[in-house]
């Protein structure tokens, strides 16, 4: 499968092969806060693309409104900086128009689970061959730190100053229920694991989701007693339970404050674009 060389590529080489980095001399900088989990997500995605050895001119990332919206611009592949939450619908259009494209939507928890929830679940239902990467930082960061559909009960934000009183969505369970055929979770601590999940998701034929629990120490963290990125990395390290791991993983993941990482669901099912063209051929034959 993956050659050792492609696993071990140094960051500088990786950047040369996949990235379009900000031009420091022109005053350009990365738009993430220092220490943000998004940097780890970006390098994991770069590594996954590099390992897959895909021609980057056939790769499209689609981003919405949120701190991750710019991420696709840092790659040599194509990018559509679209509006808030609509990326899966854009993906449906891209894939139907050119099934050879590799489409990766880069979304947030607010983007995919609130304003764009309908596009997300319907794209999952269709089993369209796109990969949805959800950067879940437990709320709305780009607008200054408000609660959202993945904010844990009690989470303090600018719009839930006394603690969030709404039940959160579990993005992975939502995706599985909606018909996604590859669903995985990782965290910004698990950089190599995240790379593996992304690689498998992109390789998967059908609708794939990778939810990354991504720290936003600057906003959600500061409001909830965890203002350091390292505190989050420790939290993710200590509370993640490997899916399917032996030794009572079942019981451990039921513990409060624990979550499962790894592939949570995978199945083979005919894919949307192929089904469309197979059905269209029938109609064409009849006339």
């Amino acid at each position, binding site marked *: 499968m993956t050659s050792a060389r492609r696993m071990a590529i140094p960051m500088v080489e990786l950047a040369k092969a996949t990235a379009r980095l900000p031009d420091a001399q022109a005053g350009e900088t990365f738009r993430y806060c220092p220490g943000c989990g998004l940097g780890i997500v970006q390098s994991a995605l770069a590594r996954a693309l590099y390992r897959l050895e895909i021609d980057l001119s056939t790769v499209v990332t689609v981003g919405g409104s949120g701190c991750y919206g710019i991420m696709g611009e840092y790659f040599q592949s194509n*990018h*559509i900086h*679209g509006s808030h939450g609509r990326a899966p619908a854009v993906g449906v*259009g891209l894939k139907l128009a050119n099934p*050879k*494209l590799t489409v990766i939507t880069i979304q947030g928890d607010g983007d995919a689970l609130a304003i764009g929830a*309908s596009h997300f679940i319907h794209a999952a239902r269709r089993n369209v061959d796109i990969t949805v990467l959800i950067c879940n930082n437990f709320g709305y960061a780009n607008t200054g730190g408000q609660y959202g559909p993945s904010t844990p009960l009690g989470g303090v934000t600018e719009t839930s100053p006394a603690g969030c009183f709404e039940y959160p969505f579990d993005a992975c369970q939502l995706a599985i229920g909606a018909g996604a055929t590859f669903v995985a979770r990782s965290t910004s601590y698990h950089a190599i694991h995240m790379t593996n999940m992304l690689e498998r998701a992109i390789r998967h034929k059908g609708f794939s989701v990778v939810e990354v629990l991504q720290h936003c120490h600057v906003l959600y963290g500061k409001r909830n007693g965890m203002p350091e990125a390292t505190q989050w990395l420790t939290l993710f390290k200590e509370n993640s339970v490997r899916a399917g791991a032996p030794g009572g993983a079942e019981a451990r993941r039921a513990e409060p404050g624990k979550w499962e990482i790894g592939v949570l669901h995978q199945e083979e099912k005919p894919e949307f674009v192929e089904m469309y063209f197979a059905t269209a051929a029938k109609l*064409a034959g009849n006339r």
Partner: protein
Amino acid sequence: MSNKHAQSRRVLLLGNEACAEGAIAAGVRFYAGYPITPATEIFERFAYRLPALGGVCVQMEDECGSMHALLGAAAAGQRVATATSGPGFNLVQEGIASLASAELPAVIINVQRIGPSTGSIHGAQMDVMQAQWGFNGNHQTIALAPSSVSECFWTTVRAVELAETLRMPVLVMSEMHVGLMRQAVELPDYDEVRIEGRPRPTCAPSDYRTYLCKRLEDVPPLADIGSGYRNVFQVTTHGSETAGGGGMVWDYKEADWHLRHLAAKVLHRRHEIEWVEPFATEDAEVVIVAYGSCVSAALAAMKAARQDGRRVGVLKLVSLWPFPEDAVRRHAAKAELVLVPELNLGQMVREVERVLGPSGIPVHPINRVDSYYMWPDDILGVLNAMAGR
């Protein structure tokens, strides 16, 4: 746009079906939609026609989804269209804004019905201002309004051409009264319908930028995603050079370029876009400025008035946006009175007033909002009252 009728055929069609046929003749092979009366026949026609042509017709979860599927397909190189009405026209606004800002072509057909909100499914011309001002930000839209089944075909053909050549969403503002009208029309041989496509890059892929152009009014060449040219499409405010080149520095000059460019590329071509048809305006003392379903009433009123010895003319507007102001000025130059019949409480009349205001020519609106057609007597009644008869 060539209009040679090499193997034309005469067929009986609904206005809605003619819109779909016009789009297909102009090369549209991708439709995404959501059902709504009275636009559904357009969707159904595509669903039956496109698969057989190797194209795509797909039903999305809502109009917002349709528009963004169009955005993706347009970026991948397809000629794309959707159709909707009333409440759906509200929901497509976000997508139209995205296509406008990202400079991607699409045709949106609005078969207007009564609003606000769900309103009713009956005929109206109540969204003509929304066509220009329905979404946020500064921009110049293009909207064409058919008044017959044949015009449903040809306005849609032209809308596809304008969308492709100017890299932007273009609106066909139909109406229930036009969309559900059945008329015999002469359809051309589709192979003879040749329209200009999107401008293509001639540079090497390494020199290509998604929005690179010299002058404000230029249309930047557009490569398809997947063609080897790297694209960065942005619904966000962007500049010409920096965008698509890893341009991550936002500055005020870029905002200024982006907004002036979106307006300039349309307004620079306003005379090519202008589409009007005058009827006996040369000697007219009264000019009726009409569009869409009101045109036939205006022509009937003109005929009756002429028989009565009164010099009445009609200026039919097919292009509504950019407002064909020079044509209105020209054809109303000698008029003593201008009448503007509309199936709303006075929308395009504001533009006519704006344009004719300095000349002092009185402009009088005639309005119906009870779901019926404009009637020749509605116009003649006002004409008689104004003429003191």
